[in-house]
């Protein structure tokens, strides 16, 4: 689905020309009267025009700045569109320097109570800055005198010391845009890769050379001046079960490739080939250097693996030990913040702190361990054409034991060995080794989830059903169930709660196996009694075999989708019901026997029915073989659920002989 189009920055000698965008037409009464946007009549608001320009230039403080000027004009059609009149500008704060927002202007054009066109300007006193947390502030303002029909226009300048992080531009937003244009001025000392994401095409692009546009302390260079624009951009509408909207939104991104120091002429290759990145990461103090600290962990894991000879057993012991040792501080990232020594001693750290410790500890035990950089689901997919380090926001560990590959994350004490948090199941990760070249790995491929349930029930003469139910969970299902159980202070409290949630079912006895043996399937056995019928004075009894867990509502109700359904993992669900009837009863209507398969083995639902002496066995299986279903496969997925629901809806019938 991901469409990345490379735009080659042409560096041809073209005449220098004026850089400002043509002046915007003045707002007139007809604009204010417009009741809807013809190209999307359901829009609550629309960008009439949006313009941004980024330049790398010298600031008055004699330092290099990335200056970004932004201007937008938005038409608001109805009350729901008013929220577009509250503007938020995120500002990054570093330890030493911060971004700065200046030159904020805002104006609202509206029709007053007498039908006359008026305008109101933003009062600078009504601009607020809030410190969200250490590294981020937000500047907020609400444009004045908003009412449905009005047009707002605002602009600001954001000056950033982080010139290596060139500003991206989102062409698409959750409201439509008539026109959106971005201009960049990049001095020849810098070289960026530009990439366009999303499915929309640029309406126009052109580039020029600006002569000697950048100078600092005597060094001068030319600049590339490039304009990108798009017209008639539709609103972006999110769908259920999709990954980050960022993967599909039309936007242009810039990644620094190379930088020449204006004063020394020294060239720094920032991003070019993965081999460069590998080298850079290996020597990075907060990454490679931490990964290497085997010696640090040697003494600490001695006792953990003492007496163990099997490699897998050792790895599992180390993993379990660190899972318990650490309390994750909720920070993610790819670089260790405090170093693994401090993190280990404090029992707490970020994702890289904990997982790089894991790698070092495995290394100390002589077990191979590489780091895997990845991007979490909400962070979006990574660029696989060339290295973009800022695409990655999470690091896990890969080890190969006996030809089997395991991906490990020690930040969550309930994850089984080899299971990643669901949030990490996002396309591809990059394996970074201390010795070998890096390579891509498919993150979804080795994860799965399954659930099987067997019921053995006897219908008694008093109308009650008595018997046992056994559930086996593995993969994510086991993880989720363990979490649910651990929410209670004891297993007894969990079972009591479960019993209370099922009014018709009484749990007489229960047994939960492998609760803390995370690498084995979780096994629950309940001895139950169900108040099925008031009495047995009926000639016919309706019975639904899906009494424990029944789907009645299709999660997919829309006729079609634009984006893939992304669950992250394939799943497998099975049910076997063995039912014993009292001697006087026979089966009048058996349950439906169906078999439905999605094309290309994408998934299936099948049931089977076997009558037996005074009873029957009924079983079914639901398999979703893929982690991601494309929008073309969507109708089959929807139909699969439709079949499941129709089958689960229909009752069996027993009758007296």
């Amino acid at each position, binding site marked *: 689905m991901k469409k990345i189009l490379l735009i080659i920055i042409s560096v041809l000698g073209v005449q220098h020309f004026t850089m400002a965008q043509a002046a915007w037409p003045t707002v007139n009464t007809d604009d204010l009267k417009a009741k809807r946007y013809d190209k999307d009549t*359901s*829009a*609550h608001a629309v960008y009439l025009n949006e313009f941004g320009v980024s330049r790398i230039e010298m600031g008055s403080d004699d330092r290099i700045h990335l200056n970004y000027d932004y201007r937008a004009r938005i038409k608001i059609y109805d*009350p*729901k569109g*008013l929220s577009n009149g*509250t503007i938020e500008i995120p500002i990054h704060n570093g330890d030493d320097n911060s971004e700065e927002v200046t030159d904020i202007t805002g104006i609202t054009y509206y029709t007053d*109570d007498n039908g006359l066109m008026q305008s*109101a300007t933003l009062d600078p006193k*009504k601009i*607020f800055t*809030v*410190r*969200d*947390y*250490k590294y981020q502030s937000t500047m*907020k*303002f*609400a444009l*004045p*005198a*908003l*009412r*449905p029909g009005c047009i707002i226009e605002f602009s600001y300048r954001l000056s950033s010391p982080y010139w290596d992080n060139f500003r991206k531009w989102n062409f698409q937003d959750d409201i439509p845009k008539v026109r959106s244009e971005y201009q960049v001025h990049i001095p020849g000392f810098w070289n960026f890769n530009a990439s366009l994401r999303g499915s929309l095409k640029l309406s126009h692009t052109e580039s020029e050379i600006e002569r000697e546009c950048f100078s600092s302390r005597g060094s001068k260079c030319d600049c590339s001046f490039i304009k990108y624009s798009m017209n008639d951009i539709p609103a972006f509408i999110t769908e259920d079960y999709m990954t980050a909207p960022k993967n599909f939104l039309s936007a242009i991104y810039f990644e620094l490739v190379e930088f020449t120091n204006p004063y020394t002429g020294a060239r720094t290759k920032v991003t070019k080939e993965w081999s460069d990145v590998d080298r850079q990461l290996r020597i990075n103090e907060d990454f490679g250097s931490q990964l290497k600290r085997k010696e640090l962990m040697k003494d600490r894991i001695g006792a953990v693996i003492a007496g163990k000879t099997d490699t897998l057993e050792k790895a599992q012991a180390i993993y379990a030990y660190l899972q318990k040792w*650490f*309390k994750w*501080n909720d920070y993610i990232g790819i670089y260790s913040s405090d170093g693994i020594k401090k993190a280990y001693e*404090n*029992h*707490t750290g970020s994702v890289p702190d904990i997982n790089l410790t894991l790698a070092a500890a495995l290394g100390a035990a002589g077990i191979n361990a590489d780091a895997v950089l990845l991007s979490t689901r909400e962070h979006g997919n990574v660029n696989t054409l060339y290295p973009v380090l800022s695409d990655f926001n999470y690091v896990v560990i890969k080890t190969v034991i006996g030809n089997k590959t395991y991906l490990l994350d020690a930040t969550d*004490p309930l994850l089984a060995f080899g299971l990643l948090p669901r949030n990490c199941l996002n396309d591809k990760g990059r394996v970074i080794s201390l010795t070998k070249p890096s390579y891509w790995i498919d993150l979804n491929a080795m994860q799965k989830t399954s659930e099987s349930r067997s019921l053995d029930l006897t219908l008694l003469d008093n109308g009650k059903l008595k018997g046992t139910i056994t559930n086996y969970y593995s993969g994510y299902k086991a993880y989720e169930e363990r979490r649910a159980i*651990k*929410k209670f*202070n004891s297993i007894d*409290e969990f079972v*009591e*709660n479960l*019993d*209370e*949630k099922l*009014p*018709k079912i009484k749990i007489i006895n229960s047994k939960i196996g492998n609760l803390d043996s995370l690498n084995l399937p979780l096994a629950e056995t309940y001895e139950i009694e169900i108040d099925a019928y008031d009495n047995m004075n009926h000639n*016919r009894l*309706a019975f639904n075999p899906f009494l424990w867990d029944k789907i*009645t*509502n*299709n999660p997919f*109700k*829309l*006729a079609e989708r634009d984006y893939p359904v992304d669950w992250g993992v394939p799943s497998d669900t099975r049910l076997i019901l063995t039912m014993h009837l009292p001697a006087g009863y026979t089966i009048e*209507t058996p349950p*439906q026997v169906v078999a439905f398969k999605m094309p290309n083995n994408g998934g299936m639902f099948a049931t089977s029915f076997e009558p037996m002496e005074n009873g029957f066995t009924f079983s079914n299986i639901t398999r979703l073989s893929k982690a991601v279903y494309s929008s073309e496969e969507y109708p089959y997925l929807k139909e699969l*659920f*439709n079949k499941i*629901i*129709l089958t689960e*809806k*229909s*009752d069996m*019938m027993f009758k007296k002989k």
Partner: protein
Amino acid sequence: MKLFLTLLLFLVLYKGAGAQENYDVSLISKDLLPYASAVVRNKQVNVEVKSLDNTYYHIKTAITILNKNADDVAHIGIWFDKNRVIKSIKGLVYNQFGKQVSKFSESDFEDQNLGTQSSLFDDAKIRHFNPAITDYPYTIVYEYEIKSKQTLFFDDWEANDDAGVAVEKSSYTFSCKPDFKIRYKEINMPGKVVIATNKQGEDTYTWEVNNLKAIKEEPYSPSADKYLSKVKVSPVKFQYLGTSGSFSNWNEMGKWINDNLLASRRTISPVTVAHMKQLTEGITDPKLKAKKIYEYMQSKTHYISVQVGIGGFQPFLADDVDQQNYGDCKALVNYTQALLKAVDIDSYYCIVKAGRLKKSPLVDFASMNQFDHVILCLPFKNDTTFLECTSQKIPFGFLSDFTDDRYVLACTPTGGKLLHTPKYTAQYNLQQCRASFVLDTTGKITGQMNTEFKGTQYDNRDYIIEEAPAEQVKSLQKEYPINNMYIEKFAFQQDKGLQPVTTETIKLEAPDYGSINGNKIIFLPNTGNRIERIPREVRNRHFEMYINTGYTDDDEITFTLPAGYHVDMRPEATTINKPFGKFSVSATVMGNQLKYKRKLQVIDGYYNKELYAELVAFYQSVWESDSSNITLIKGN
């Protein structure tokens, strides 16, 4: 001199050692363990009013975390703002045997803003820290001091406000100079206050509780105010950010608010005054005039929360709202009041505790911290109308379930008055559906549904109504449990009169609605209004049963059956009558028509806890009936 210092140091050390408590986890009484994931060993809250603009809170907590579930409880968060400054924080960590293993200090804490998405500015922040301890159980002992620059209101003292936490010992001491008088209210307190004088000659008021068991959450429980042990303290004379005053009852408090926080805020420009007069020209009925102005205000403004300075209690100037077109609840109510005043309609600024769960201020105890929202009251003769001013779409005079059926304090020039907002009864909160479908032999249904929503159900569809049409179809498909629902046509109509009604009309077809099994068609006669879950059972229920909002759902669905089929099985006609609700259902056949009737009524109120088991059984019956199929069979 030197000797004296040494001696002093020794004394301090000695005292310190003597005050050392034993936090060994095995010392916790077994009685306190059920449903507890944490146990407060000792919590001391000391509030000292040093002067009218200077209050110190000194809080010391020793809490044992028994397992991972209580990590949230171990997470320390202290809110502060410009006028509430944190002076110090420090803490120690003990292992399960009561041996100190580590410590933490203020530098381990981080600050985070408390403002929400909808707020433009909020000064309040939280300073927080999550101790990283992975060996359970453990005990953290921490203390902090806060200096607050006002004496208008004090934090309530709650002995135990978290579910799953038991309390060994918790105490509260309020101290102040003898000339600083307080009023206090003890709520569900097992003991009484102890009043004394301390060494500094201050009056002290002390409360203490011991051995409180952990609260287990129970569905259909009344608001926590009904059972939690709590003490509220309010001053007689106070100072609040430059303003001073005094009150000892609701009347005086309402007057103080009106005179000091509101009276000067209502000026609007002569142009706007003239416009209001012109807008209501020719209307004589003051209520209709007010409606006209209210609707004007709704069309002009929108809600944005801004909490600046004493903005926590004081509205923006009305003129400001007139210019900016936005404001928070205070500003919008104050503005509406000013607009109404322009045409000589009086109104009251009413402070209220908002939310679905109905909460009223204590009738006999006036204090500032019992409210979080403002609405407007129009005191017409024989007709009191309340207005919610923060919504652009709510009908005139309608409060929905956000501020219905509770006491509010009207702040007027003649003093505060407790008024009661309208109650919407179970009969009035009606959702009524009339539908007719044709069922064919493939299981497809085709037909139309008309549904009316009244009372607190009036806004059930508001979230869909404001969406774009393409999204509305998707939302309707999600709203109804009908799979393969193809909507051919739909419409919403809202009558915003004094008894507002929303009407939804949907023309639809749904293939595979009925499931075919051999010569049978099986389908649910309840197409669109099934209850989704049954309340859980509760053994040994502790709290009385409380139903916050009553309602009535009334559905009548007619199916035209396919030729050649007749009804083989259908749900039994049922009628259930209970004090808290009524349910009746029937499916009758007339020729080729099957008429399904269902009526569910739930009546709000307080009920004896013994009735809870019947409530569960009641919902169980409804659920079973809702999931009962009709089976049609071909031939005779």
